[in-house]
């Protein structure tokens, strides 16, 4: 019986070996070798050059994750409190942009944020620039939105927000109503019920939401190139450059990827330790 069941897991094991473990091994091998595949630590020795890119990547990813949480949590909460009809519509609305290709979505944001893009045209049309110029005596023709770090963060928030909303929503919607009633019964007003019961019990959803936004944000590459205009290079761009770009050096690229992966794993580990108690409680 037991051996039969483990037989069922075989395709999964093969899949994991082929597409998860093998690539990681390849990355590790590349990271510790030279172009001639001689062992070396040189790839890591030069890492100091990229510290600023590391810092920027993690900074922007953390900011984007926090914004996603601030927008996503209330939205998920409201969704979970509404009726099933509203929930269905809201879920579809949240998923809808994800049916459009990622690059296409990001290009659309370029069109919106350009100096002569949709948003600036709109501001112009409603006379916002004239108003500002007349008040401050300035000579503004557009807001510079594209090619800023803000645009990069916006792109990340826009693309990854659903990954924050959905896990939080699914945890809150499954909360036992009688727990909320019990809290009320014991004297908690609605703020108290939220603070003492709903929020702590939705921590597992927050944790997985944060993971699902933070990890792709930190390694994103197209967003920063398109919306950041290449002036704010991030880790994803740096790695891409080593594999596909002019700087062609897959060994250095692998080393950077490996370092990034280790930092992300440490981040996740710390966070999961932090939320361990709650996670267990909900599983049981």
């Amino acid at each position, binding site marked *: 019986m037991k051996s039969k069941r483990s037989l069922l897991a075989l395709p999964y094991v093969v899949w994991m070996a082929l597409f998860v473990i093998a690539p990681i091994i390849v990355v590790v091998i590349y990271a510790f070798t030279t172009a001639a595949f001689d062992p070396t630590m040189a790839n890591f020795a030069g890492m100091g050059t990229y510290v600023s890119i590391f810092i920027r990547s993690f900074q922007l990813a953390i900011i984007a994750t926090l914004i996603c949480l601030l927008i996503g949590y209330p939205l998920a909460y409201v969704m979970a409190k509404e009726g099933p009809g509203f929930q269905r519509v809201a879920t579809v609305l949240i998923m809808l942009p994800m049916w459009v290709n990622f690059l296409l979505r990001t290009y659309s944001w370029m069109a919106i944020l350009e100096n002569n893009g949709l948003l600036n045209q709109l501001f112009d049309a409603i006379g916002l620039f004239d108003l500002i110029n007349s008040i401050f005596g300035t000579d503004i023709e557009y807001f510079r939105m594209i090619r800023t770090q803000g645009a990069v963060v916006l792109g990340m928030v826009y693309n990854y927000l659903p990954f924050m909303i959905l896990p939080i929503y699914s945890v809150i919607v499954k909360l036992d109503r009688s727990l909320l009633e*019990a809290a009320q019964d*014991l*004297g908690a007003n609605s703020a108290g019920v939220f603070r003492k*019961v709903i929020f702590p019990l939705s921590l597992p959803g927050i944790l997985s939401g944060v993971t699902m936004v933070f990890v792709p944000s930190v390694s994103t590459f197209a967003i920063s190139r398109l919306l950041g205009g290449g002036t704010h290079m991030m880790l994803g761009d740096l790695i891409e450059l080593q594999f596909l770009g002019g700087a062609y050096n897959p060994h250095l690229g692998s080393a950077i990827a490996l370092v990034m992966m280790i930092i992300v794993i440490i981040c996740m580990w710390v966070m999961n330790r932090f939320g361990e108690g709650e996670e267990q*409680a909900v599983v049981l």
Partner: protein
Amino acid sequence: MSKELIRLSDCVMSYDGDVVLDHINLYINDQEFLTLLGPSGCGKTTTLRIIGGFLSPTSGDVFFDGVRMNDVPPHKRAVNTVFQKYALFPHLNVFENVAFGLRIPRTQTVEQGGKTVSKKVRLSKQEIHDRVMEMLEVVNLKGFEKRPVSALSGGQQQRVAIARALVNRPKVLLLDEPLGALDMRLRKDMQGELKRIQQEMGITFIYVTHDQEEALAMSDTVVVMDQGKIQQIGTPEDIYNEPKNAFVADFIGESNILDGVMRADGVVEIFNRKFQCLDKGFDQDEPVDVVIRPEDVDIVDEGNGQLRGTVTAVTFKGVHYDTIVDFYGFKWLIQTTDYCPVGSNIGIKIDPDGIHVMKKSQYSGLFGDYSSYSEEYEEIGDADYVPDEEEGSHHEE
């Protein structure tokens, strides 16, 4: 003792025209153990939720100490609830679960320089600790305070739920089928313990259950409900001995419910035979329902009985035998310590106080014969008829 604490006045609850509670009038005294008893869907939980503040009646009023409470939210009522599935907070340990209510600052009105001011009062850490520990001792959970609630057994979780509610010193404790998920033994233990806690702390308990035995064992007052209406209110003895209608008789304990005719005060006719009873005040020749409890029937020799019948099935129940006896095609359940083999002819005697006469009601005829009576009564009018195995095993259902 008998000071009125809660009153439901003409409470109606309906959802989209579907009436769940039908003009409920009920008062509950201070320190009373009152049970709302009825089958599922009878409106007992709805009544409890109205008292708890989780529902507002469609019409009618709820009074606490004479003050109308209809729109007062749960967190402002001097009532705490033990929920059906305990609803313990999974992210908190036993201590924190019990301390939950104590950690919430209460608004208290205090005299201050001749003026009454409402103040938020927060209990000190020490006081919270003392009260939680004291309550854990009451429910026999000392030493469990650090455990996560998920590591407790059903009975222990139950005790935490009770402690969590009682630690707030409510005037009234509402209990919604609190023992439903426990096994038989534990249930019996907890029944005794709940009663002890209620008496020790002098708190009013309003208890919802569908288990009649539980209701009889624990309550000062039992309210029997069905179809959103109160069928009878009374002490457990009243309810059992003097059921008001066939529904109550059937729901509370086992009973044989027969058609009868009242021939005079103290004389009721069943199967064309006159029986002495204690009931009075009916019209001459008024058709009535007659309830005879299975344990009130004495089995005697065939020749000495008021009625003669044939035993069709016997089941050993430990203390007694459940004996099904066929009287003229009408099956009775008799509980006796005497063993009568299947097929034997016996006589029975019923003392006057074993016969309970009730007015006809909408429930008449619904619960009659111990086996499915109506068709059979018409088909078989013969005491010698020996039913086949299948029918004889009806009482085991």
